[in-house]
């Protein structure tokens, strides 16, 4: 019997997860273009290799699992992973580093855990930490942060890239593909801790902290990596708690927090997501208890 499901004409916006991923890829095009404009052709070559190896890794993993590779690639998650991953690479990364990171991230951190929607750790964060900690000789600051050329007037390239990331994340927030609470709580906590420290330190420190928060690499983490719905809790309260768990170490670390530290913080928070989900269950209508996946 063919499974026929009626589309909904009554729900205001019929959401589509593949469309969300496509918006993510679209939103990442501008930062990628800006980064490409500030570096040499090596970056584009690296990007191409990463894209190819990401798609291949996903497809091969799907084939090994017995699922149609076309279906797995059709959700565009490998492509968005590749685009984000390329942005996080250091300048001195060789051609094989990006490819091995992509294979690790998709093959092991994503497909081995069960595929899209079933992974515990955000694949990008896992792949990034793998390349940085596994090959420390190639760990410099990412290309986004070291873009020194001024692209137009006196605005530094990093500011433009940060702006591009913000605008790229906007469609996702509007479509509710990602929950606004996660970046919202993170920024709020950072600003509050900034306000707290402002009363202690001279005002110039505040300015530096804003500059620090607006680093493109941190924005990438807060807007694209931490907000991944698969690895964040499913309730609103849970997400706020999750965001707090990410923001507090960042606030405490202040400007010692770089991209690697931020990714590691996200990974730790991912690890705690099931626990947060367990603690923040909604109370079932008409009952005193909350719906649990455990028998008690």
């Amino acid at each position, binding site marked *: *019997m*063919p*499974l*026929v*499901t*009626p*589309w*909904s*004409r*009554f*729900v*205001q916006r*019929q*959401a*589509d*997860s*593949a*469309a*969300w991923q496509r918006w993510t890829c679209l939103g990442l095009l501008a930062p990628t273009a800006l980064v490409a404009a500030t570096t040499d052709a090596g970056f584009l070559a690296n990007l191409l290799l990463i894209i190819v190896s990401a798609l291949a890794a996903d497809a091969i993993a799907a084939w090994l699992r017995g*699922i*149609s590779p076309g*279906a797995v690639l059709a*959700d565009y998650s490998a492509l968005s992973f590749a685009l984000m991953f390329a942005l996080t690479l250091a300048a001195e990364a060789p051609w094989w580093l990006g490819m091995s990171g992509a294979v690790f991230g998709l093959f092991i951190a994503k497909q081995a855990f069960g*595929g*899209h*929607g*079933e992974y515990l750790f955000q694949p990008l964060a896992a792949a990034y930490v793998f390349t940085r900690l596994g090959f420390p000789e190639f760990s410099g600051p990412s290309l986004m942060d070291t873009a020194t050329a001024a692209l137009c007037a006196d605005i530094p390239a990093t500011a433009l890239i940060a702006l591009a990331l913000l605008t790229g994340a906007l469609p996702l927030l509007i479509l*509710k*593909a990602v*929950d606004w609470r996660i970046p919202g709580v993170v920024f709020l906590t950072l600003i509050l801790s900034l306000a707290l420290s402002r009363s202690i330190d001279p005002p110039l420190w505040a300015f530096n902290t804003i500059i620090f928060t607006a680093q493109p690499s941190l924005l990438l983490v807060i807007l694209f990596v931490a907000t991944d*719905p*698969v690895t*964040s809790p*499913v*309730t*609103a309260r849970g*997400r706020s708690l999750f965001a707090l768990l990410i923001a507090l170490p960042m606030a405490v670390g202040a400007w010692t927090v770089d991209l690697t530290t931020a990714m590691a913080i996200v990974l730790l928070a991912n690890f705690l997501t099931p626990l947060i989900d367990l603690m923040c*269950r*909604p*109370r*079932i*209508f*008409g*009952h*005193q208890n909350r*719906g*649990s*996946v*455990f*028998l008690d």
Partner: protein
Amino acid sequence: MIVNKRLLLRAKHGAFSRAGGMKLTSTKAAALRCGISSMPPPPRLFLEVADHRSRPAALLVKAGDKVRKFQQLSRTVDLSQAPVFSPLSATVAAISRDAHTRRTTIRLDILASDENAESETLPPLTDYGSLTAAQITERIAILGVSGLGGRGMPVAHKLAAAKKRRVQQLIINAVESDPDISADEAMIRERSKAVVEGARILQRASSAERCGIAISKEKKAAIAALRAALAGSDIELLILPTHYPLGEEHRLIYALFGTETAPSASILDAGFLCFNAATAHAVALAVNRGEPMISRIVSVDGPTPLRPQNCEVLFGTPIWHLLEVCGADPAQKDRTLINGSMRGQLLENTQAVVHSGVRGVRILDASELLQSDELERNCINCGHCVSACPVNLQPQALFRASRARDTFQLAALGLEDCIDCGLCDQVCPSHLPLRDYFGAGRSEMRLWQGSVDRADHFRNRFDAHQARAERKLRRPQSVALAARQSDSKTEFSRTSAKAEIAAAVARVKARRAERAEDQGSPRKDDD
């Protein structure tokens, strides 16, 4: 489990976002424009009577009989099944029973000639006020009035259950929060007096302290009609905002009175009783005019050339006949949806008929169908389903548990409280067929409960067997038993019996050896 919260004033008119549910765009305008249309009676009606308590229906007619309009066709033994009446003068052409669906179908061939010869079951009443509540309930039971809200429970059965408890508030549900069904609204616009009459009768029959008619804000013409009909009466008109699924009785009560009742429990436990507005109308017809329930209003919708309308349809009308009369294209038979897009089912049996549970019929547009060969996507934990669920369940966890067939997890997560509103299904960005999964989950739970009951039954029998064996061991050999063993009165000789047994055993051994040769294993198998 019932939780009484303080009355939430906000719940009456304000934000429902925290309580789940959604505001849906409605497509009822086209159908409502035409009012209630009637259709010519079809040439054949198929009335279905389900088995009751594992027994086939007890029929009062047989094939070849001529029946008159309103004549009773089936007999019932208790209140939980309503009798079936003939909607028109007809001949009983055939009676068939389907053992698989456990239903008896009576095929009636309509007689065009004596359309007007009626068979009254009961004389009309001018004033039901002289009857007691029990007498009114009995009259409703005799005339077979069933609920028209979708579940089809006989009204008398519900009233009998309510009699054991004190009903504080009777609610006549005219909310109809489905975005594409407008049958109740069309009926109220034209027949509000009968609805109010039915409300009064039901209040008397259930001895409810208060009575109210709940309706949603956007049904302006219906509200005006009800206001006119309610003038001077002490029945309240309760107006709710337009929100899905406020039509569901548990959510309705919470919105009106702030009392939470679990959907898996009955609202009667909290002192509420709820009937659909169309049911109230049918009750008024039954009690006042003595007419049994033979028809209902069905919302028909679909793409052109179908004309969307609310049609008064006799029970037993084939659904596809109804759709063709409204102008549908027969080539679209495999895209018929019953009871709306949110809670409805795709019609698999194209010969299905209209019964009391069919509120709306819709033909899906080609653009409305998700591709059937699309491979299933993964749940990405986006949480849209959790925020949409009006019962605060976690549909994504329920989905995973249904897929794993984990009945314990399903029970712990509260699948029994799911009201099947379909919101999670519609908002899911991965287009997961969540309602279908939950249906499979419910079936699993039912099967598991069935196997647990079976196991309990077997355990009891085993314990009885053990007890009996123990008693037998302890009991000394009785004289009678010894006598029986040496009884020579039987013609059966021991020696000849032994010979026969030996012969049979030899046959069996030969057969077993044969089979062992064939299969190479000594294990016996069935044929």
